[in-house]
């Protein structure tokens, strides 16, 4: 119950003492530097001396320190290398007051020094990193401190070849591990430090510090024999400098050692020596901490009154009481003491104070913890919110993107469909048009087929008709014609022989027979104009025209270049056409003159029949294709020809026919 507070106390003290690194020689060190300043002609050397002095004076006389720093800066202006050093010393000024600024200046210094690969530069870089690590340590980041020491400070120190610095870094490491109660590690590094420092013949103070540090460690390890040996080694190193502050620490540890081994008187001797030194050096806090230790010696020695006295004294001292943890320990110590003294009322009082303080401390700690937690929580919340916002943002942008994409897709699809629809529409229209054309085509073909069929049947009919006519004409001629002619000739023979009384009768008979013959000839000729083959088309047509002439009806026949190469069928068709047209003119026109013009040019045959008769209206349905005209049409079509009828009432009729012939 009592050992715990003791150890805590020692730990606290250890931390407080750690950064103090003043050479044992004290003012002698400053004097020698001042000497250099006075004697050296080189600005660079002067600058360095100034810088070292500024460090020396810092925390002793800050005005002086500032003065030296400024001087050092001025003197080192022309030396770029010194800039890094200046920063190293300058950073020290902010070391306690503005840790962040200090650290950033240290980092700048390192980056400047990085350019130089000489021992001095490595030495300073090692120191720079040691300081940066120390700054981390003050922020309770022990791990960063050890990392920096192991990976930066120690390697640079080795490169600089300065074993003292290496040892110093090892020592720092040892202290860290000791404070963290990693005692074997602490021992290891402290031993390393001692060996390095001893070999380098380091300044005795530093070596002593290593010794008493490891001694303290041995106390914690309860290796008391080694503790005594190490304390002795330390004392040997420190004895030439009895006023050194290192003795304060030394006596404290010695006291602790004697206390734990139960040599209370020796412990009190050690502590009193320390107190005397502290009083001499006017270091109040150190004096009070030693007194603090003395309390525990008395307490453990069961000298409760003496112990009570010490704490009652310390209660009055503002230096030690300024730290709550000290107060708490004092309250607790007093409580225990009064319990042991049997003064329960006092004990209760102090217990109450202790509880209150403890509570408040806890509360404040709790509060600060809570605050820290809160801050942490808030930060986490904020981060969460940021993350959420970011997520939302992302989602929103994603949604927007998706939206855009969807719009594009929709647009594209719509366009595609539009194209499809348009294409289909046009295709449909084209298809419809095509289908329509096809249908029209089929219809035309059908019509043509029909016409062809009609034409063919008409042609067959005409041909059959012609054949029949020819046969009839032949029959008429061969049969009836022959008999009639024979009768007529016999009558001529008889005529001369008959008596006068019968003569008139015979004459009548002869006239009738002549009429019959004429009629027969006319009929036969109409049926089959044999003159066509006998005298050719042109003459046959001329005779035909003549045969239509009467006193009141003239027919003017005008043949031009009719070739004899026409086929029999062509001749007959032409003959029939003319015959038909003349028939019409004679029957209907009441004309006095008809012109029949037939001409040929190469394989075209033209027929024009024009009369000066009453004419007719070709548009009137009455005149549309009577039987005669229909036959005419058929005949024209058999010769792949065309017919054109021009007529007006009282202005005659003109029929123009154009035929294709083989000739």
């Amino acid at each position: 119950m009592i050992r715990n507070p003791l150890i805590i106390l020692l730990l606290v003290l250890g931390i407080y003492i750690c950064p103090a690194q003043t050479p044992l020689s004290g003012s002698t060190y400053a004097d020698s530097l001042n000497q250099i300043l006075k004697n050296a002609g080189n600005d660079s050397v002067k600058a360095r001396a100034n810088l070292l002095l500024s460090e020396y004076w810092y925390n002793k006389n800050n005005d002086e320190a500032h003065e030296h720093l400024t001087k050092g800066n001025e003197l080192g202006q022309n030396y770029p290398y010194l800039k890094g050093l200046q920063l190293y010393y300058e950073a020290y000024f902010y070391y306690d007051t503005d840790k962040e600024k200090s650290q950033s200046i240290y980092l700048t210094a390192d980056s400047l020094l990085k350019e130089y690969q000489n021992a001095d530069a490595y030495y300073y870089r090692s120191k720079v990193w040691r300081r940066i690590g120390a700054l981390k340590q003050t922020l309770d980041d022990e791990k960063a401190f050890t990392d920096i020491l192991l990976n930066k400070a120690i390697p640079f120190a080795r490169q600089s070849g300065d074993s003292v610095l290496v040892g110093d870094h090892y020592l720092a490491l040892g202290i860290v591990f000791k404070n963290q109660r990693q005692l074997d590690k602490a021992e290891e590094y402290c031993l390393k430090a001692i060996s390095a420092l001893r070999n380098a013949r380091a300044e005795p103070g530093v070596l002593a510090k290593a010794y008493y540090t490891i001694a303290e460690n041995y106390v914690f390890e309860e290796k008391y024999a080694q503790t005594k040996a190490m304390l002795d080694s330390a004392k040997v190193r420190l004895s030439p400098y009895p006023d050194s502050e290192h003795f304060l620490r030394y006596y404290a540890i010695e006291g602790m050692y004697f206390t734990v081994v139960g040599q209370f008187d020796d412990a009190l001797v050690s502590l009193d020596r320390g107190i005397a030194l502290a009083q001499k050096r006017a270091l109040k806090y150190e004096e009070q901490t030693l007194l603090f230790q003395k309390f525990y010696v008395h307490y453990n020695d069961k000298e409760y009154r003496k112990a009570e006295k010490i704490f009652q004294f310390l209660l009055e001292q503002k230096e030690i009481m300024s730290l709550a943890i000290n107060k708490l320990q004092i309250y607790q110590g007093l409580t225990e003491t009064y319990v042991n003294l049997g003064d329960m009322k006092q004990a209760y009082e102090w217990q109450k104070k202790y509880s209150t303080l403890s509570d408040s401390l806890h509360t404040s700690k709790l509060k600060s913890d809570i605050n820290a937690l809160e801050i942490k929580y808030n930060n986490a919340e904020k981060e969460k919110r940021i993350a959420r916002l970011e997520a939302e943002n992302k989602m929103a942008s994603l949604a927007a993107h998706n939206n855009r994409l969807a719009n594009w897709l929709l647009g594209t699809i719509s366009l595609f469909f539009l194209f499809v629809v348009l294409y289909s529409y046009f295709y449909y229209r084209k298809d419809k048009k095509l289908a329509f054309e096809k249908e029209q085509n089929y219809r035309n073909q059908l019509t043509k087929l029909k016409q062809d069929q009609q034409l063919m049947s008409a042609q067959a009919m005409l041909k059959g008709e012609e054949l029949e006519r020819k046969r009839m004409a032949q029959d008429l001629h061969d049969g009836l014609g022959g008999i009639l002619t024979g009768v007529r000739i016999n009558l001529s023979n008889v005529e001369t022989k008959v008596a006068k009384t019968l003569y008139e009768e015979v004459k009548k008979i002869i006239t009738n027979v002549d009429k019959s013959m004429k009629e027969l000839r006319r009929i036969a000729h109409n049926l089959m104009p044999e003159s066509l083959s006998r005298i050719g088309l042109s003459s046959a047509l001329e005779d035909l025209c003549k045969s239509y002439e009467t006193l009141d009806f003239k027919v003017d026949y005008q043949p031009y270049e009719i070739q004899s190469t026409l086929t029999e069928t062509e001749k007959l068709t032409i003959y029939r056409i003319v015959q038909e047209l003349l028939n019409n003119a004679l029957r209907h026109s009441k004309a006095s003159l008809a012109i029949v013009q037939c001409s040929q040019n190469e394989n075209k045959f033209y027929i024009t029949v024009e009369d000066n008769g009453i004419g007719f209206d070709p548009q009137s349905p009455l005149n549309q294709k009577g039987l005669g005209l229909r036959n005419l049409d058929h005949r024209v079509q058999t010769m792949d020809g065309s017919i054109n009828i021009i007529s007006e009432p009282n202005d005659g009729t003109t029929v123009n026919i154009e035929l294709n012939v083989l000739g």
Partner: protein
Amino acid sequence: MYLDKTSIVIVDDHSIVIEGLKSLLDGDPLDVLGHFTSGNEACDFIERERPDLVLLDINLPDVSGIDLCRKIKAMAPETKVLVLSNHNERNIIMQTLQNGANGYMLKNISKQGLLQGISAVMAGEIHFCNEIGGIISKPTKYELGDPPYLTKREKQILRMVADGETTQEIASRLNVSPLTIETHRRNLHHKFQVKNVAELIMVANKHQLL
């Protein structure tokens, strides 16, 4: 053989007609040497016997009487050919005459007329019966030199030609083929018996057709 008698060959496709003629002609100074119903048989006979006269029909089953007439005249120029036919068309008549026929009579001739015709032909005359005489003496319009009749289309074209229009222009204006117009123009040249457009227009002017 019979020096005084006129030897006759009858060619007609009707035997009844031949019989009638034979009975009509037999006797007196006439002697029917032979009679045939086809042209080619008659031809061989005539070449061999060389009769004084052939009574020839136009309608024959194998050849046309018109052609046979020329053949007979070529084989036996002294033989007279008297055509005895039912055809009264001017062109047929004219063609037989061109082929050397010495006379043309229709079959409704009397015995007297027939004998008259035979003796006239034998006397070296060209003989026609009355009706045929009338037909061949009817003059045609052109032989009279009257201005020819023009169709309406011809008048149109003539005016256009006179106005200097080309065949192409006329054809497109009248909506017919250029060949048709070309034919009309050629026909007009024939009609007025001219050789070029200038003459054509001149003659047309003379006849006051423009």
